[in-house]
């Protein structure tokens, strides 16, 4: 698997990650090396093997969906932000 500079640009777009031309230049061969290295996983016969998602085997762990403000109140949350507070809300930059 060889990743070209165009591939890197495409992946960076999917990840919403701004890269400089120098970074694209540098990452293309480095990512190619990494993908070539992990290629070894295809040697392993995994027919009929389930993929692991939780190593200790817990499943369907749930709790009541209740609002809990014991850890932090909305006011405390507002205090920790660097953003300006207007009307008890954070004002963020205009997006559109």
């Amino acid at each position, binding site marked *: 698997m060889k*990743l070209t500079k165009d591939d*890197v640009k495409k*992946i*960076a*777009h*999917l*990840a*919403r*990650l*701004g*890269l*400089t031309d120098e*970074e694209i230049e540098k*990452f293309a061969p*480095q*990512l190619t*090396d*990494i*993908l070539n*290295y*992990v290629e*070894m*996983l*295809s040697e*392993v016969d*995994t027919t009929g*093997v*389930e*993929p*692991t*998602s*939780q*190593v*200790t085997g*817990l499943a369907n*762990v*749930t*709790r009541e969906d209740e609002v809990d403000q014991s*850890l*932090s109140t909305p006011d*405390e*949350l507002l*205090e*920790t*932000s*660097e953003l300006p507070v207007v009307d008890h809300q954070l004002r*963020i*930059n205009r*997006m*559109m």
Partner: protein
Amino acid sequence: MADLTWLSIAEAHKGLMAKDFSAEDLVKASFERIKATEDLNTFLNLTEEEAIEAAKKVDAQIAAGETINPLAGIPGGLKDLFNMKGTLTTSGGLMLGNYRAPYDATVVRKLKAVDAAIVGKQNMDECACGVSNETSYYGNVLNPWNKENVPGGSSGGSVAAVASGQVMYSLGTDTGGSIRQPAALCGVVGFKPTYGRVSRFGANAMASSWDHVGPITRTVEDAALVMNVIAGQDIYDATTPEIEVPDYTAELGQSMKGLKIGVPKEYFVEGVDEDVKKIVMEAIDKYKELGAEVKEVSLPLTKYGVAVYYVTTPGELSTNLARLDGVRFGHQAEGEFKDIHDYFKACRGEGFGQEIKRRILVGTFVLSAGYADAYYKQAQKVRTLVIKEFEDVFKEFDVLMAPTSPVAGFKIGEKVNDPLAMYALDMLTIPADAAGIPAISIPCGFNEDGLPVGLQIMGPQFEESRVLKVAHAYEQATEWHKRHPEL
């Protein structure tokens, strides 16, 4: 008053109860030591007021004859990815450089509940990605044994702080070796418990199916004492099971007679330095003297560990870090943007360092349509086989022993432009993370350059007590843990 720098938690607790010194003395000594050795660059922020306040409270409790926890009033530090209400929690990067924690992580809440004196937040590889602490936005941490060397990573600041006598313990995280590998390189104890044994709630996530929280200490007993406080089920972390937490000190001191030790030959292959192999084999021989049975064993899937890790963890990291977009969290780019995507790209492009960008790209690729089955899913299937391989071997053996790190150390800058060489340094620590089994690194000698070497001991899931007991037996039979760097 005696020098308080190198006391273990257990010794300091004893001294507090005997009124040889106060908790305030301990905390002040810690801050003095941090200042005197600040060139190590271990701490990003200090929480002096809170620590002194906790110490005063503990001193009052002692004066009133109350019973206190062994961690009460003991100075400790937190890797800077643990949320501690009101403190900056940077994860070692610019992206979260201004992020102030709005709540306490569960482990922080538990430490505060026993009046532990948390002295500050520690330097680390950015977002816990790195094996040398060189990816930190806030500069290298130096290895206390040789300041030209890296301390290991990603919990480099946390480990160097313990090794240099600044604090008596730290909390770190271990995803591919980030507690044990730096512990080996800095000559201290680093313990990674079973996956889910300690809550990760409030620890900024790297790779959720791999992240573990654990203690870094100067003795095995101290690791058990910290575990006693931080372990257990947490309703805020669905991966913590409803399994009772034992007293982790209870089995310390038990005999090694008849203990079955497996030595996996794949942990002594090419790429592992000869001096490391020799020192670790001598340590394993010590167990024979103590009455244990030692036998070579084979874990053939070991060689796939690094590949499994560098597919699955970038995948999970790329999704975990997707929330850092400069809107609710994260660095905010300045300027004019043509659309929202352009703004996201600018924030993330400026906010993340090189290693994080590399891993986000790999992770996004291995999870993308057309490649997810071949890469991510295949890696998680191989991981299933790795887990099975450990389960099988633990039917015959009580514990496994191996080196923690393939090298005793390396110079700052030496490998910085070679990501694959860096990744290979986790080859011996990744498998225990892949299988979620408890594993510890303890000091077991020094190489010719005077650098410490770590012995790794692994046990089956939820057998923390056994791993600690075995590590403790070696520590009691040797003097390595009493050697400290001259600073």
